[in-house]
């Protein structure tokens, strides 16, 4: 309680300041620590080829997490993102015959449609987001499997593969795309009418509604954006794996994405979105998994370590309330 006296008598570390600073930047501290460990103990860690792999692997999660962060900002959640990735993936090989652009457009349209369904169920029917998106979580992947005939299909289209494994100015195209999307979403949240409205909805939906904000339209848009981002992630996953496997693409990614968002400091209660934090959250989880794999630790250890890191990160970042 009496921090003032403590600092007066012992001018050592300013605990109060650290405490105020940690919640916002705790995830970056964790990243730094993990990086340090890897630099010291993991061979080849600082090599560009390795860093590159980490960036590539986290790109789809970052993209999905961006959309998830927006949805969470409205006090929602979207469980269907993995299924959307599968749908996008299933559609690509079917339309690749008409060219990459056509295939991409079709898979994005699928994203739009799913988003419209989710958004409508949440905004207009009034379902709880978790339940509304649960239906497509269950059914969406099934639909993807129906569309793809349940079969994994190889993708040999060079243009598409370029998106997944090509470089532009020495940096993977995939990473460029993810970075661009981060900038766009960050900009949208900070600078646009849509961004402010979205946060207001998350803060107090009835009040925002009474203020004359077209809440339903904004909400539907948010879910559409989230699904479209997921379908981008889905088609990039296909480009990267060079095959389309509706049964595996994006499996359980909803949980990874939510984790990235929350670990990055965005509260599940809505009203605030941390875009950079979300990227940091994804990076942290990527580094954890990479570290575990590189040190040949098995899933049992990886999962328990992940659990602890999530808890610590979120504990540090939790909302403080005076008592």
């Amino acid at each position, binding site marked *: 309680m009496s921090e003032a006296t403590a600092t007066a008598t012992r001018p050592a570390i300013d605990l109060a300041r650290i405490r105020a600073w940690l919640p916002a930047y705790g995830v970056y501290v964790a990243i730094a620590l993990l990086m340090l460990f890897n630099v010291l103990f993991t061979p080849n860690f600082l090599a560009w080829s390795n860093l590159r792999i980490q960036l590539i692997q986290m790109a789809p999660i970052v993209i999905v997490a961006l959309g998830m962060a927006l949805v969470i900002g409205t006090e929602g959640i979207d469980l269907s993102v993995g299924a959307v990735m599968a749908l996008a993936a299933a559609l690509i090989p079917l339309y690749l015959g008409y060219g990459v652009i056509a295939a991409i457009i079709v898979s994005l349209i699928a994203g739009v449609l799913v988003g419209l369904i989710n958004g409508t169920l949440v905004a207009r029917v009034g379902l709880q987001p978790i339940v509304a998106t649960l239906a497509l979580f269950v059914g969406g992947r099934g639909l993807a499997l129906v569309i793809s005939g349940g079969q994994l299909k190889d993708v040999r289209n060079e243009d598409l593969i370029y998106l997944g494994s090509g470089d532009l100015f020495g940096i993977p195209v995939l990473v460029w795309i993810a970075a661009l999307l981060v900038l766009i979403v960050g900009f949208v949240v900070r600078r646009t009418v849509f961004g402010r409205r979205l946060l*207001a909805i998350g803060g107090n939906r009835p009040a*925002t509604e009474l*203020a004359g904000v077209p809440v339903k339209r904004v909400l539907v848009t948010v879910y559409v954006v989230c699904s479209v981002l997921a379908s981008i992630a889905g088609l990039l996953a296909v480009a990267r794996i060079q095959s389309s496997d509706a049964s595996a693409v994006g499996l359980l990614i909803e949980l990874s994405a939510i984790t990235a968002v929350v670990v990055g400091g965005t509260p599940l209660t809505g009203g605030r979105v941390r875009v950079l934090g979300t990227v940091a959250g994804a990076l942290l989880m990527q580094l954890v998994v990479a570290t575990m794999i590189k040190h040949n630790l098995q899933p049992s250890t990886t999962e328990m370590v992940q659990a602890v890191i999530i808890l610590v990160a979120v504990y540090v970042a939790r909302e403080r309330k*005076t*008592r």
Partner: protein
Amino acid sequence: MALLEVVDVSKVFPGVRALDDVSFTLQAGEVHALVGENGAGKSTLIKVLTGVYQPDAGSLRYRDEAARFDTPMDAQRAGISTIYQEVNLIPLMSVAHNLFLGREPRNALGLLDEGRMHREASEILIRYGVTTDVRRQLGTLALGAQQMVALARAVMIDAKVVIMDEPTSSLEPREVATLFGVIRDLHAQGIGIVYVSHRLDELYQICDAVTILRDGKVVHTGKLADLERIRLVSLMLGREMSAVRREGFTGFAGGHATAADAEPVLKVTDLNSRRRLHDISFSVRPGEVVGLGGLLGAGRSETIKAIGGAYPIDGGTVEVDGRDLKRPTTVQAVKAGIAVQPEDRKAEGLVAGLSVRENIALAVLPRLSRFGLVSDRRIDEIVRTYMDRLRIKASGPDQRVGDLSGGNQQKVLLARLLATRPKVLLLDEPTRGIDVGAKAEVQSLIDELAAEGLGVVLVSSDAEELVEGADRVVVLRDGAVVGELTGDRVTTEALLETIAAAAELEENNE
């Protein structure tokens, strides 16, 4: 004997010293008024007394012993019972379950005795004028009835101290009378009562002693009877008596200049909504303040919301400046120039987690942006304008609205409405829960706005406010218009008569 004592208590929130070395003594069998402006620290003091907050410094004494309450439960067990400012019950649970929560009667097996609970609940509540089926969900009751349940709950336990934080702000006159009856009973039993209210006439009716808080400090404590009303106000506000006297109690100047033949800016015709509203018609001309009168539950809030597009209607028309809006949505209503200030500021008015700036700008973002990109410069301009004009007290435009005092929150809400440059302003209890100073400011603001040519609809449970502020009063009952008061008939007496006459009429029809 001092029943409850607060000794030199301080409580600091980030950026605010909500209580600064406050001492306060409650005697047994005393009704002690606790007054002060919005944000003076009344609720905070109460929360310290009841274990919701722990004081940062200072101590409590209860029945002549040092006391410490870690949780509200501790305080309750010790016999300190509280009705908080916002009704704090569980809307989804039944009335009886709310009444008995945590102390439900149990049978021999240790299981709850529902039968007994319902029986006893009905018996208890009748004394408070609540005759509803106690198995009904509490949330479906009118606010006043809910407040009565909270009161019954607080008094039911063997309380030695009962604390009431603005208990009457959502009660109708009849219920206020019941409440005062209960207070007198408690008083007679030697129970100490702390009573917080912004309604000064109530204080003088019921209280023995008074403590005045200003900016977290005690500025006066003593017998209420010894304290002139005007002096009390000046202590509260920290202003000279003469200044207070000059300004008067309500901020209304009375009477607005409206051309009798002016076309109405708002015209409502035969508004119907499933079982709640029946053929409601009235109109408002530019520069006119039309009051909506009636008891709680009369449908005033629903009427206002329906006009603003926030309550579903089955029929009827809403016209603004002669243009039919055809069942407006909230978006269309705002676009057409209708601004609604909802009754429940916290739940439907403000986004507590966002800043003053974001809240004021929320409704007008499209106007302050180009191609969907907001212009911070233009937002700042408008925010500064309204913060100045409404004298909003905040550390700055970036302060979280949730941390402002009630009065300032209300002003932020009004600022947001005004920023939309409305043609009609629909105000639902605009001065509920705000202090005399802020109240007068809001009231004179309403005058000002009318003078600028806005049409205003005013809903208030404070009859005085209604008749002084409005040029005409449309009286509602059970969702229907039962009369209209104009000219000399705009008086408290006429208002109550109209309501009563309608009640009798209905009775005869049954």
